[in-house]
């Protein structure tokens, strides 16, 4: 299936990397979890070793040349025009250039082939399409469906089934962002006015961190996302859950919480499908409790973090588009209880 049969686990090659990195994590271009990243990882090491060879040879020639002709004499020697060995040197330099040209050809060839493999949209059936829209400073993910009420809209946490090809359509609502989950595939810019597409496929279940890679303003540093790869049945379960409208409140606190949501500033920016809140300025909160993190992977989705975020998001992400919301303590408690129930 893959021309170079890249392996995601090359102990010999990664030893160097392991030694150099203090805490290898999953967020790494050299920890591939998808064939796309694995191809690039393979290519990276191939070019790395070519470059390493070139480096060693050049430095060795330089050191050897310096050592053999070093003259520790203070008085400058009279200059010479040519050296008797210059004729030999012409052949050596010519040979070195020839080797350089050949290595560059090798690099070019491998790059083109790997590029084709990474981009190669093999016509597989059952492709999952996800529309990713970059916003300052969060990600909107839509799973389009020809039936409008079957469309899933979520934010920052992108669920994909393991082993299925995922086609990502890119778009931006404001400035240029760049979608990058290093363990899965290379980055792709989200340029306003251009829509582009790329595909990936995750082979190992898990949660893979990603981050915006193109400078996009004040909170560029806090524009993370996660790609969560699950087995097919879990993914379908998740899909069913996300398609449903917001859960109805089941306790008086939750009911009051929904009232708070609908009568405060929340309603101006956020959507809760199934209620009157339908604004598309901020992330869709219909199933916020099903997400692990909030604020574009900045805070864990816990009661405390949510309370802190709602009361004063400007402390956590200075400059983001959500204003501080001074609320009565019991209003805030009920609101959080309600949001916590939105599985």
């Amino acid at each position, binding site marked *: 299936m893959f021309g170079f049969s890249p392996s995601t686990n090359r102990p010999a090659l990664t030893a160097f*990397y392991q030694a150099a*990195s*203090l805490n*290898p994590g999953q*967020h790494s*271009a050299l920890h591939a979890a998808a064939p796309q990243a694995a*191809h*690039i990882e393979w290519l990276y090491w191939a*070019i790395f070793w070519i470059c390493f060879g*070139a*480096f060693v040879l*050049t*430095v060795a020639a*330089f050191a050897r*040349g*310096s050592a053999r*002709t*070093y003259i520790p*004499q203070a008085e*400058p*020697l*009279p*200059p*010479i025009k*040519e*050296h008797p*060995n*210059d004729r030999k*040197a*012409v052949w050596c*330099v010519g040979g*070195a250039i020839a080797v350089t040209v050949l290595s560059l050809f090798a*690099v070019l060839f491998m*790059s083109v082939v790997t*590029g084709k493999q*990474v981009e190669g949209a093999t016509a597989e059936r059952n492709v999952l399409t996800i529309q990713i829209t970059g916003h300052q400073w969060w990600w909107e993910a839509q799973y389009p469906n020809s039936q409008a009420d079957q469309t899933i809209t979520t934010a920052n946490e992108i669920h994909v089934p393991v082993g299925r090809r995922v086609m990502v359509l*890119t778009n931006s609502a*404001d*400035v*240029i962002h*760049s979608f*990058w989950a*290093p363990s899965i595939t*290379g*980055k*792709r*810019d989200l*340029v306003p*006015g*251009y829509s582009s597409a*790329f595909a990936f496929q995750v082979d190992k279940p898990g949660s893979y*961190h990603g*981050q915006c890679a193109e*400078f*996009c*303003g*004040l909170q*560029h540093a806090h524009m993370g996302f996660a790609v969560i790869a699950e087995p097919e049945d879990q993914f379908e379960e998740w899909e069913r859950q996300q398609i449903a409208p917001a859960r109805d409140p089941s306790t008086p606190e939750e009911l009051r919480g929904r009232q708070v949501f609908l009568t405060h500033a929340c309603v101006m920016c956020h959507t809760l499908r199934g209620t009157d809140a339908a604004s598309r300025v901020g992330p869709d909160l219909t199933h916020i409790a099903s997400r692990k993190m909030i604020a574009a992977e*900045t805070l864990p989705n816990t009661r405390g973090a949510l309370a802190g975020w709602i009361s004063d998001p400007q402390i956590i992400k*200075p400059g983001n588009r959500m204003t501080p919301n001074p609320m009565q303590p019991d209003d805030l408690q009920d609101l959080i209880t309600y949001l916590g129930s939105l599985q």
Partner: protein
Amino acid sequence: MAISEPIVVPKRDDVERLAQAWRQPSGFRGWFSNVHHTAIGTRYMVTAFIFLGLGGILAGLMRIQLAQPENGFLSPDTYNQFFTIHGSTMIFLFAVPMMFQGFGLYLVPLICGTRNIAFPRLAAFSYYMYLGGGMLLWIGLLTNTGADAGWFSYVPLAGPAFSPGKRVDFWAQMITFTEVSALATAVCIAVTILRHRAPGMTLNRMPIILWEKLVISFMIIFAMPSIMVVSGMLLLDRLVGTQFFNPAEGGDALLYQHLFWFFGHPEVYIIFLPGTAIVSTLVPVFTRRHIFGYTWIIVSVVATGFLGFGVWVHHMFATGIPQMSASFFTAASLIIVIPTASQFFCWVATIWNGRLQPRIPMLWIFGFFFVFLIGGLSGVMLASVPVDWQVHDTFFVVAHFHYVLIGGALFPMFAGLYYWLPKITGRMMNGAMCHWHFWLFFIGFNLTFFTMHFLGLRGMPRRIYTYSPDMHWNGLNMLATCGVVFMTAGLIVFLVNFFHSKTYGKLAGNNPWAAGGLEWATPSPPPHYNFAELPTVNGREALWDAEPDQPIVVGLRDDVPEVLVTNTLDSDPEYKEEAAGPSIWPFLTAFAVSAAFVGSIFTAWAIPVGAPPVIVTLIGWLWPRGHSPSPHLEAAKRLGHG
């Protein structure tokens, strides 16, 4: 310590008259009217060095912010301004002005064996424009108007909707200033090289450094208009409401990137070709032989100049360029490795077949070999599209271009400074302090920037003001910040060395390195007439190849500042020309132009109101004054008629 006295040149009548004819105003008046190339070149170097320091301070502050996760040392707003101003300062206000304009203006006329740059007033004008642009950017930063959209200010982020206020306007107008300045200097240097070379310095005997300056001048002349257009379009979008970059109205955000990088990539070569020129100049001096492969190096330099214009898209691989065109630009980016590699091989061959007698500048050349090689090879990785998809816009790229730019410009710059400062100040630099400077800087540099490769591969994007401790980037970041301490210490040692040696150093004499370039045929520091007797040239290394009875040029008047104009190919003398003397008009013109430029950020009226002063000062500048009367002729006339 005994302070040795400068050598006194024996007084001769004609030399006295020459000094009188070429006299430049000094002191306060000299600031505004001195047009001699050594003065302008020195101004450029000093100003650029100050900007290096300022940009370095910003870098240090950013490194402190990044040393720990979730650090609150700088706010995101401040951090964004800092990295934008750091990048813009280093590229536009340090690297090009230092490597091209500073070294170029100071050295090119000396190496050509002429008495001043062509169009000295234009060169003076270029300096004032550069200073104006630099002050605009930095006054902006100090008044909280520092640009904050990155040094390439991508739209729409830098456009009117997402960068309100005047911040990006200041940045874009700074571009206009520095590009006017670079274009003016490029014209001066190209014409000097083409028409003012000493007789005998034919094109195939021209020192490599002149070839490189010529190529760079042409690169500037072709690349800079692109950025002036794009910064002008950005300003129009922001101030006048045009729609060049508004996708909804048919504008194009990618158009900006194409135009910017069409300038931006040649700019990289504009920055490091002067560095390789310094290496090609110094390696033969300290291996006591002519350079190996002169023709190969010239061909490489010219090829780099052309190919440099064909690789800009490799900055945009992640935008979703089609496979076919991306492969084309991969190929182009790889091809450009060949000329640079050829230069490396020629230097190695020169050393291999030479007789290495290293002096302190050679230390920095060794540093250059090591650092620039790493930068070049990580560039090969970046040229490959798939690898670029992973490491583009990460700290890997940050590491790469610091290796290329610091390796390709700063290391050769220090080599060049240790080599030519004796010519400029007349005194030798201290060798022990040079060693301290080098090792501190070298260790600090590699500590800071080598770690960034790993950070990039482990997913740290560039331009983030903070990061979460969960990312495990803290150890490497702390290491990188520690390196800054070493680099700073190194730079302080250099400054101490400079100020100490400037006054107390050993006297340099004309030619302390027994080098072959014409700049060593004149006293250190050179007098304003540069050469008492204009030299002729007999080979590629003028002083090494000179015959014992090498002729000199005679026939130039010594009572009027005159320069010899030779033809382009064979540098046969064609005619002599009176050189422009000191003048206040370039300063006044630069002032008027600056006022119009800065005013136009705030109101459109600055154009009609600002244009007349520019016209008036230009008329004053270009007012025909005829030839200076010769005092001898005047005296003869008086005698005859009296």
